[in-house]
């Protein structure tokens, strides 16, 4: 809801109110918190200038023309570096981690989760490159994103896990071992040939690069699950269809077809067999806190519109003067606040585990290398080699542990379903109180209600996330296994 663009100082104060924990962090790391506030302020400005004036219109246009994509809105986001928020500073990005990105998502989604999810799904496509020891891809693909962003040319990424007959199955090792897979990868000279389909892929129809998972051996899907970076220009890749969604329409979801699509060896992310453990699990550990934030942002936006409705007199009486509305608003505010703390907690546990690799002194020290050296063919080849990948895996193992990232994953699952349920609760309750009152506020909240439902489904249904939490934090049977320095990670529900 339009409220004027706040200053960075105002945003910082607001963050301290919403997240008292940040006040403590600011005492030790004032520059870090200042950076968070600056990014959130940018998001607020972007909402105010570009999103709020058009979000309802885009929703309606995209209902009729589901392939519609607002490139101009993406281009407007380039000056705020929205495509490089989580890309390491080593290759020209903002260098944000889960906390920064979650706060940005909440802010953006309070205006329009469809538009925000363009950047959210893009970051999701980047995440596997960050967590899977793929430094040579940072120097090539991620650098391309940041360089093109500076030139005003968006390079969008996506992540493709879900298959037409396997959704939940491909997000968790226990289920993957029994999944009905349609995608396959066959090893050939110099690379792999992909065949099959992926569906409901956010940004799938507009992405330049998509991280795609596939089993190299159908009989051993878990052990051979591998991540590939597919360029949309590659022969054999096509967009089969763009889905017609109930909400979040500004961000298109597509079915992708792979027909003898050759992917060279250098586009394998991590080692063969690391697609699930650690690839997918680490990616989801990184991304589910921001999804909790997306849902929290939807709830917050709906709450703000509802507050405006409640404070507007109808027939000489403000709805807010009714006790029923007061109670509802108290419940909404509480749920939103609890969701916030859940996602911040999850994001902090990611940043304090795997995130430390990205901000650690070794990678930081590489920033002093001149560009000719850092981006030279030699350096790229070294990091793309088996030795280079093992070096990064060793780095990850030195900075964090399997237990720490498992905790991060459990917290992220919690944040995800708490947020999704909050978004549905708040939007639904608001509409119940408004009746059929057809006003501007209702139009926004109806959109939020439709948008919110997706947050209970994507990034693993809320049911799967509850199971993940149970298995990882209660039963202890699910553990994230870090890539082994010598040889790939194992696979399986069980523990190393």
């Amino acid at each position, binding site marked *: 809801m339009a409220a004027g663009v706040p200053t960075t100082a105002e945003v910082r104060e607001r963050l301290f109110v919403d997240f008292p924990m940040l006040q403590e962090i600011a005492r030790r790391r004032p520059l870090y918190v200042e950076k968070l506030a600056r990014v959130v302020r940018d998001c607020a400005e972007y909402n105010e200038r570009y999103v709020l004036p058009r979000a309802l219109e885009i929703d309606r246009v995209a209902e009729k023309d589901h392939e519609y994509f607002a490139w101009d809105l993406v281009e407007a986001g380039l000056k705020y570096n929205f495509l490089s928020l989580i890309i390491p500073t080593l290759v020209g990005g903002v260098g944000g981690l889960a906390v920064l990105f979650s706060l940005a998502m909440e802010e953006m989604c309070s205006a329009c989760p469809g538009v925000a999810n363009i950047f959210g799904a893009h970051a999701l496509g980047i995440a596997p490159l960050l967590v899977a020891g793929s430094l040579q891809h940072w120097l090539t693909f991620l650098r391309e994103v940041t360089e093109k962003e500076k030139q005003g040319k968006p390079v969008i990424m996506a992540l493709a896990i879900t298959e037409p007959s396997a959704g939940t199955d491909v997000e968790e090792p226990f289920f993957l071992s029994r999944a009905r897979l349609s995608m396959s990868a066959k090893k050939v000279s110099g690379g792999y040939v992909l065949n099959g389909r992926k569906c409901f892929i956010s940004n799938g129809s507009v992405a330049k690069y998509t991280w795609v998972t596939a089993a190299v051996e159908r009989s051993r899907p878990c052990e051979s699950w591998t991540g590939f970076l597919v360029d949309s220009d590659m022969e054999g890749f096509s967009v089969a269809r763009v889905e017609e969604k109930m909400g979040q329409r500004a961000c298109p979801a597509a079915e992708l077809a792979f027909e003898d699509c050759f992917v060279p060896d250098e586009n394998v992310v991590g080692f063969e067999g690391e697609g699930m453990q650690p690839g997918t699990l680490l990616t989801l550990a990184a991304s589910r806190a921001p999804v909790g934030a997306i849902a929290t942002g939807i709830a917050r936006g709906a709450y703000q519109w509802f507050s405006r409705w409640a404070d507007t007199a109808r027939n000489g009486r403000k709805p807010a003067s009714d006790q*029923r509305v007061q109670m509802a608003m108290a419940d909404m505010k509480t749920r939103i606040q609890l969701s916030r703390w859940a996602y911040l907690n999850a994001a902090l546990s990611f940043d304090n585990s795997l995130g430390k690799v990205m901000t650690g002194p070794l990678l930081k020290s590489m920033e002093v290398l001149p560009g000719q050296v850092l981006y030279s063919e030699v350096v790229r080849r070294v990091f793309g080699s088996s030795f280079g990948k093992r070096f990064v895996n060793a780095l990850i193992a030195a900075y964090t542990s399997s237990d720490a990232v498992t905790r991060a994953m459990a917290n992220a699952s919690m944040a995800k379903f708490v947020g999704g349920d909050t978004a549905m609760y708040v939007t639904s309750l608001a509409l119940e109180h*408004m009746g059929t009152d057809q006003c501007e506020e209702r139009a926004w909240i109806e959109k939020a209600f439709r948008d919110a439902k997706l947050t209970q*489904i994507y990034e693993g249904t809320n049911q799967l996330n509850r199971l993940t939490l149970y298995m990882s934090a209660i039963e202890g049977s699910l553990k994230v296994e870090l890539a082994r320095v010598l040889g790939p990670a194992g696979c399986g529900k069980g523990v190393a």
Partner: protein
Amino acid sequence: MELTRDLLLGEEQRMLVESVSGFRADVLDDIARDIDEEPTSGKVADAFERAARVGLAASLLSDGAGGQEMDVYSFCLALTEVSRGSAGFAALLLSHNLALYALEMAGAWKESEELTGGSSWAALAWPFIAGGGGGLAPFVPGGGGARRLVFLAPGGEDIFSVSPADEGVALSELGFPMGFRCSRPAGVEYSRVGAAAAGTLGLEAARQVEGMLLLGVASIALGISRQACEKAYEYARERYQGCDQVIGHQQVRLMLARMIAGTEAGDALVRQAAGGDGSFRLASCRVAKVVACDAAMSASLDGVQVHGGYGYMRDYGMERLMRDAKYCQAYPWARPNELLAVLTDLE
């Protein structure tokens, strides 16, 4: 899936349900998505004409007025079946039938004989909020495209039957409502309540119309619940997760069981509130409405969830159930107000 309601149906009611179910299968199922997306395409009018042929455009009117003289519960059963195909279309039929019913009860039927044939529909503009020498009906299903608009004046004594083109009538179709879309809901302002009424309804009859409206919405909600439940059940049996049917998951079974429980509860309350002799206890109608609509909301949300990503896509029709269910909760009154009115009625 056979629920308790089905076992309790009499022979005539069973035949009615089968007949309306046939109409749904022949007409509505094919166009439900189209009329939701393009309510003005002409397909709604075609479907209305077909509905009239099976007696759904004059369900409540007496035999003498060319109607089916359905009892209230039978009318509810018919609405539930229609709603399984399209809740929006059921809302249009509800609005039309109640408008005609109110006119007949007020002795003003002669004016609107042309409305039973199926070539055009009427809409009940209620609730009607008085103000400034006239008033406003903020949400009128069937308002867009209606030939006649029927108002009950505040207090319910007088009834007005007007054309949208008449002086003092301002009708504005709502641009993009989330639910009941094919009924082309409209906001209607009427500034000539002082003009001659078409007839006199009386307070008791007005309360009866209100009760029937509530039960009608409850029945539409029951259609949503049943449809959500059956579609989710079919999907969960057909879809596999790994080697197991989705329906093998306890969590999914719990969701389905909750849908059945909600539908059963709503069915029972509607049957009870509809009574056998046409007399109403308004509080019972409100309770039935709230329970049935809450069940529809919950069932449609769970139905989408059971379908996963497919449930969110328009092709599967699940998301439409969810959008329509929200309007069942909101129409004619906001849910909390409806609940508060239960106590007021009983007091």
